[in-house]
């Protein structure tokens, strides 16, 4: 507890787009409850703070930390470890922290090819440049965070108390969680067991989707831009659109399918599922209407990027997690023994 007796709150933005930060503000006047009930001690987006201030806090002194974004570099990892140490409740907040999210798709590519895409592209004036963790200049040695070979989820780096999926988490779900934590602090409610997924449902998006559904026989998968007409009341998957809803955890209210766009899977897998992409892949394949390899392959041609389709948000949390990269074992070893070395 702080001097004013309020529990402490922190939020940190790692490898992600920052939408989660905005989402917290999207809870509207509920944010006043946060302010009324918590003392915000660390939230780089909202207030000035230094890493050493956090380091100076006693371990376990932050009551609630929302951590959004995945672990892409040594700075992300250092903050993850630091905030873990300082926090009583660490929440992996949003798809990136929970499952890697969109940045996790980079796990299909080797770092060098990522750099090539970023630094060798036509629009940059720094052709051939590669970021270096340590760089000598006349004034001395410069350090920037080291880029890791792959992106990890928060839980792959530190123990996490709760997972709150969504890209970003839905405002009403955030508000509900905030309420719950506040009530728990006042002894009026009990927190779910550690490791739980909060702010989301137990089933999948179809549970909340109002579109009519039938037995599925898919003759061809289509991309949405190729369809002239989409029946507004019928299951999108039945119309050939690869909708990730069947495998994606409920909680969003089936926002995308209701708006006519297939679910892309930001809430991750349903309860108890080991590998989101494999589940979805199996479901898609099972309802293909075809028994010969030719028929099936023709149908599958409608999904030009299967890995991207079934792992759009979950690749960093998948069993295989990413592709074979160009890095050799030595480099990997380096990464493995790496300790968070970056200091502000």
């Amino acid at each position, binding site marked *: 507890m702080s001097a004013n007796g309020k529990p402490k709150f922190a939020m940190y933005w790692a490898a992600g787009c920052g939408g989660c930060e905005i989402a917290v503000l999207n809870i509207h006047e509920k944010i006043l409850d946060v302010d009324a009930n918590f003392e915000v001690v660390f939230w780089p987006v909202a207030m000035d703070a230094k890493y050493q201030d956090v380091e100076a806090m006693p371990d376990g002194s932050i009551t609630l930390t929302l951590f959004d974004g995945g672990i892409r570099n040594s700075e992300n990892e250092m903050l993850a470890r630091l905030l873990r140490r300082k926090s009583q409740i660490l929440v992996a907040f949003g798809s990136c922290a929970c499952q890697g999210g969109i940045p996790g798709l980079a796990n299909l590519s080797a770092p060098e090819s990522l750099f090539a895409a970023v630094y060798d592209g036509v629009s940059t004036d720094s052709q051939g440049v590669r970021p270096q963790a340590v760089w000598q200049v006349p004034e001395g040695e410069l350090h920037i965070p080291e880029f890791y070979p792959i992106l990890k989820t928060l839980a792959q780096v530190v123990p996490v108390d709760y997972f709150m999926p969504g890209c970003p988490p839905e405002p009403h779900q955030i508000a509900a969680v905030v309420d719950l934590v506040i009530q728990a602090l006042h002894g009026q409610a009990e927190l779910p067991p550690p490791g739980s997924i909060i702010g989301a449902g137990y089933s999948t998006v179809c549970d909340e989707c109002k579109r009519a559904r039938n037995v599925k026989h898919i003759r061809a998968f289509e991309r949405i831009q190729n369809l002239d007409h989409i029946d507004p009341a019928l299951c999108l998957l039945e119309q050939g659109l690869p909708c990730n809803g069947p495998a994606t955890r409920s909680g969003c209210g089936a926002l995308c399918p209701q708006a006519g766009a297939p679910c892309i899977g930001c809430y991750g897998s349903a309860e108890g599922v080991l590998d989101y*992409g494999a589940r979805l892949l199996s479901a898609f394949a099972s309802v293909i209407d075809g028994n010969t390899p030719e028929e099936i392959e023709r149908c599958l041609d409608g999904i030009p990027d299967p890995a991207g389709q079934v792992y759009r948000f979950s690749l960093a949390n998948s069993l295989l997690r990413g592709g*074979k990269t160009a890095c050799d074992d030595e480099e990997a070893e380096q990464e493995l023994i790496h300790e968070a070395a970056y200091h502000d």
Partner: protein
Amino acid sequence: MSDSFEPILIGFTCNWCSYRAADLAGTARVKYPPNIRLLRLMCSGRLDPTFVLKALASGADGVLITGCHPGECHYLEQNYKALRRYLLLRRMLAQMGIEPERVKLVWASAAEGVKLAQEITDMVEEIRALGPLNWPQRHNGAAPHADEKAVKEGTA
């Protein structure tokens, strides 16, 4: 290392055809390399792609999926579902950088003990030539400690 490399394969078999083919290979004393470890399912239709990923992620160098010939499924038509999943899985594994030879689907009836043994022999040799998959290292992030993950990650 590659001189002494002995690949380890996981083979998924159908209770009604390929598992019996393996039994038959045994009864007939047909020899094949000891590099495969078979696992029985009731049907190739039971094959959840997760199992294949799990085997590869747990250190297997290859996975052989077997089932009844098309039209001969003990459960009438479920092997077609296995085929559909396999074809999609194969496309995805290619994106993951896993050589197509490492995951194969083969039809083997209960009478095809010799054929199954030959398929296993061929696949072991193909994978021996490819070298180890070594997935955790190869995917250069290495797996986090499983125990820690299971406790801390609700999605486990």
